[in-house]
Structures are given as C-alpha cells and as structure tokens.
C-alpha cells in the first residue's frame, strides 16, 4: 500500500493529501504523522487538503485525531485549503471539527503555525532547548 509523503521543513512537517484516500490509507497517515512528530521532534504539522473534493466523517475524524495526537506530543497542527463545497458538506454532515486550527492556504497556515509555536514557547516561560 502506498503511503502519503511527509516532508520536513525545519521544525514543521508538511503533508499534502493529493489522493482519494481509502480508510486504511487514512489510518496509516495518522500513524505516520504521529511517529514523525516524535522522530523529527517537530513543533508543527501543516496538512494541505486543497486537492480533496470530499471529506467524509472518517477522514474528518482522522484529521481531528491528528490534531489531538500531535497536541499531546507538543506540536500544533493546521489544516489548510478546505474547499467551500467540502466545508458546507461537513457542516451539514455534522462532523465535530471545532477544535482544529485551519487556514486558507499554505502561506497563511505556516504563519499561523509560527504564531502557535511561539505562543507555546511563551507559555513555558522560556524557549525549549533542542537537546
């Protein structure tokens, strides 16, 4: 089974979902992202879903799951590029995604991640040292 590629850009992981995912692939992505956050000591994850023409409850829960898991691992996730038709459908379907950070595109998403990461550091009272 092919996996969705994850790129590292400094302390941020970039995931661009370009294919129509079957459930197993979606679950594999969730595993891969969480493993990479730990392995690469990532502070942020950016998931680009601008190519997705459909997000159903399973994929929605997968995205929400990634957000929760990465937060537990000390990293923030931002989902970018959700299409209007997809957003309207998710709202009608009733998938609970209120807790995820979102941005219109990769640029705005990276900026938001920078702000979230900086805010995370401020909360600690001092910068985290990468040991």
């Amino acid at each position: 089974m092919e996996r969705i590629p994850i790129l590292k850009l400094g302390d941020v992981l970039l995931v661009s979902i370009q294919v129509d995912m079957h459930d197993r692939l979606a679950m594999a992505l969730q595993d891969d992202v969480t493993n990479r956050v730990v392995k690469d000591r990532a502070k942020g994850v950016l998931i680009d879903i601008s190519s997705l023409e459909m997000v159903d409850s399973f994929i929605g829960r997968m995205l929400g799951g990634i957000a929760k898991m990465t937060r537990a691992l000390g990293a923030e996730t931002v989902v970018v590029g959700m299409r209007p038709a997809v957003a309207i459908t998710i709202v009608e379907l009733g998938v609970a995604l209120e807790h995820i950070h979102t941005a219109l595109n990769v640029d705005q998403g990276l900026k938001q991640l920078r702000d979230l990461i900086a805010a995370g550091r401020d909360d600690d009272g001092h910068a985290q040292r990468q040991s």
Partner: protein
Amino acid sequence: MRLASQPGALNDLIATNNLLDQLGLHTLEVFQKSQDAVIRRQQAEMLELSTPVVKIWDGILVLPLIGTLDSARTQVVMENLLQAIVETESAVAIIDITGVPTVDTLVAQHLLKTVAATRLMGAQCVISGIRPQIAQTMVHLGVAFGDVVTKSSLADALAFAFRQRGILISRGPDRT
C-alpha cells in the same frame, strides 16, 4: 402529381410529412430548452448582481444583505461568499444584515452554517447589523450563537476585522 398512378408515393408522402412534423417538434423543443436555459442563466445573474461581495480591504470582505431572505436565496448567496473568500484569500468576511427586516430560524441556521463553514476553510465570519429585535427572536427560537462573533453595526465589525488583521488606523497631522 397524381397519387393514384404512383402507389408507393402515398407512403412516401406520409413518411415525409411525419418527418417534417418531427423536425418541427424537435426544433420547437430545442428552442424551448434554449429559452429555459436563457431564463435560468438570467435569474442566476440577477441573483449574483443583487448580492455583491465587496472587498473593502486587503483580506476583508463585506456581504451587505438587503431585503427579505428566503432559504434558497440565502444558500446561493452564502455559497458565493465562500467562493469569494477562497478566490480573494480573505481571512475575514463580514455579513451585514442591517438591511434585512426579519430573520427566521431557517435563515438564521444558514447564517450559522456559513460561519461554521468559513471557519473550517480557515477564515473568520462576523455577522453585523444585529438589531435588538433580531437578537431577541434568535434567543426565543433557541438559536445558539455561542462562538459566533456578532456586532450591532458594520462599523464595529470593520474595527474588529482590522484588529484581527493587525491593521492600525491612525489619524494624520491636523490639516487646518
């Protein structure tokens, strides 16, 4: 032409007549379909014209709603707003309902769904022009306005939008 002397000719004549009738009917149907298509297109264009989305600043859109809203119209208008948000990459959209006399539950729900959809897309939607009467109706109808940012005036919504975008407006030196 004398039909009696040409036995097959009558059949040919009938067949030709039928063919011409069918052609006429087909032409009529095609004409009607193209007319229907024209009417539908004009209606869609009128709908778009009557509810323009205005880009009032870099990254800020305003949708001034005027007149009575029905469910169908509200849906189309909201879809247009979401599309405009994507196309202009605007992080803040203001829906101003100052010019809307009454808002029923269905329309209120559409507004809330639009706010929710905007957030999922990565932008923020503010509803301005909420009059006390509308606010009361909302509460009575049990509409949950929980996380939705609402302002009573478009001016307040605009000030909010500027703050969100980190834009500071300052007065220049006094020109007297």
